[in-house]
């Protein structure tokens, strides 16, 4: 279980994350929404160690990870994918997966053996199949389509076998059809892998359709937490977020 306790981070005078306390039970699927600048990405960056929180705790199964480095946090089981696909452009899909498994098996500093190590093959293969990238295994990452690059990014997080998977806008920059395919994939992964998934999403139709639980952030604070129905009818959310969106104003 991932428990966030009184997490806070300020940039200058701006409170990007303001006293956030949240629980993500094991095996849950949660969407994080909020207007631009609500602190969604900052929230992810604090959990994964990209930023150090000013105060508060990030407890994974009771262990406080707040303020630790990204490699340490990853090793404790929190994996992440990025808003802009963060991949290794000159490696092939297969090399990317094999190297990631090497990193997870702590053999990334091995000098006396040849890459790839045989013991990394099965896991790499499994995740490539899972995300439908097996047919593109010998493609260089830079030559993949935008959607496949996003999938590869998620595959990189998933191949480490995390307990918690944080997806920062898995559908960013995709067309309407591609979005649904991606989000179906995310849901399928959540169902089959039995991991805790938290994702940031802008498309309200997608959020309301697939997320059993929704967290709304606004100005770094939690505005509301609840099921899609609860969120849809929450007056604070309508006023701060959904309302303005429907009125067509840029958030």
């Amino acid at each position, binding site marked *: 279980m991932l428990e966030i306790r009184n997490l806070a981070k300020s940039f200058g005078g701006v409170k990007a994350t303001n006293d956030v306390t949240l629980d993500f039970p094991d095996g849950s699927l949660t969407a994080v929404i909020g207007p631009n600048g609500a602190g969604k990405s900052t929230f992810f960056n604090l959990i*994964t160690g*990209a930023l150090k929180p000013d105060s508060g705790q990030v407890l994974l199964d009771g262990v406080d990870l707040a303020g630790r*480095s*990204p*490699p340490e946090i*990853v*090793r404790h089981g929190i*994996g*992440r994918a*990025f808003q802009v696909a*963060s*991949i*290794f*452009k*000159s*490696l*092939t899909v297969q*090399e990317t997966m*094999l*190297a*990631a498994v*090497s*990193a*997870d098996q702590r*053999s*990334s*500093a*091995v*000098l*006396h*053996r*040849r*890459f*790839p*190590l045989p013991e990394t093959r099965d896991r790499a293969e499994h995740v490539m199949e899972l995300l*439908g990238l097996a*047919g*593109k*295994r*010998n*493609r260089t990452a830079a*030559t993949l*389509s935008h*959607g*496949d690059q996003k999938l590869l990014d998620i595959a*990189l*997080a998933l191949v*480490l076998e995390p307990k918690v998977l944080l997806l920062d806008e898995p559908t960013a920059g995709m067309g309407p059809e*591609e979005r649904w*395919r991606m989000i179906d994939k995310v849901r399928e992964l959540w169902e089959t892998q039995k991991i805790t998934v938290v994702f940031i999403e802008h498309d309200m139709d997608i959020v309301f359709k697939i997320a059993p639980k929704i967290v709304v952030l606004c100005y770094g604070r939690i505005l509301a937490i609840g099921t899609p129905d609860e969120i849809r009818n929450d007056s604070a959310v309508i006023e701060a977020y959904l309302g303005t969106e429907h009125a067509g104003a840029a958030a």
Partner: protein
Amino acid sequence: MTELEAGRTRTLVPVRGDAGLQRYRDVLIALVAFAVLASLPLFTGSKALLDLVIRCSAYGLFATSLNLLVGYTGLTSFGHGMFFGLGAYSFGLIMQKLGVPIPVAFVATLAITAVVAAIIGAICVRLKEIYFAFVTLAFQMLIHSTILSWASFTGGDQGLRGGIARPRFLGIDLSNHVHLYIASCALLILGLLAMRQIAQSPFGYTLRMIRDNAARASFLGIDVWRAKLTVFVLAALFASMGGMVMALFVSGAYPEFAYWTISGEGIFINMLGGVSTFLGPMVGTVLLLLLNDTVTRFTEYHGIVLGVVILFFALGLRKGLLDFVAEWFAHRRDAGEGR
């Protein structure tokens, strides 16, 4: 997510060969290369040719080790030459002052290089791009000035004079020209083989990940700083080996070996040969030394000629020679299979 696209490229890119076989292939290539080089004195009495190969060994080790930093890790060091100079001076000084057997001086020099590189690396590898480049350059200048000003120990601007004693060991007499030639070739081939192993190991792929996207690598649990420091020290060891070959060749060590122009030549060689293939810097080394030797014979303005050549590669081809050849072959293969 276009299946059609995927199906087409799959046929174009052959599945990469088995890792174990690649290792045997590399060893085989190394053995053949060594056999060819070692048999050269049987066919030619040209001392100039053998000298060229010895110099290629020294510079080749140095330039290939620089490529581990530049090409594989994305660490563009402008001060890598300091380890070339450090190797030459440490080896020369140990031989002159202590009179130990050559293998002992060799190992001791590597140990000294490792310690110095670890200290300098620990400071430098935290820095990004241009700052890394310039701080490594600063350390190079520091070492060069130390050599110049500590004249009582290093001989100052005169260098280590009086020759380096080369006592026999294991039946090898490095004061004999052919013995020195064979030993240089052996060091080159062994050094290249070791660096090839580093490049193709899991660690080598860690380096590629850091080059492409260091932030992402750290989110895979990789300690980027430690990996960079490790490769910085490893590369320094091979540069130092190059310096030792040079010291043996000229039987001395001179401040120019530690001057920034050596680092510049290293970068130059890498641009000439190309950094996307393992042997690119080796090709660049041979090209540069040949160019240097022929051009200086015809004109004293050889700097201008070399400048034009590097402009041709940098602006015209936009890549090194071996990069160009590798790409050409890839295109040809794709075109052939596409038909």
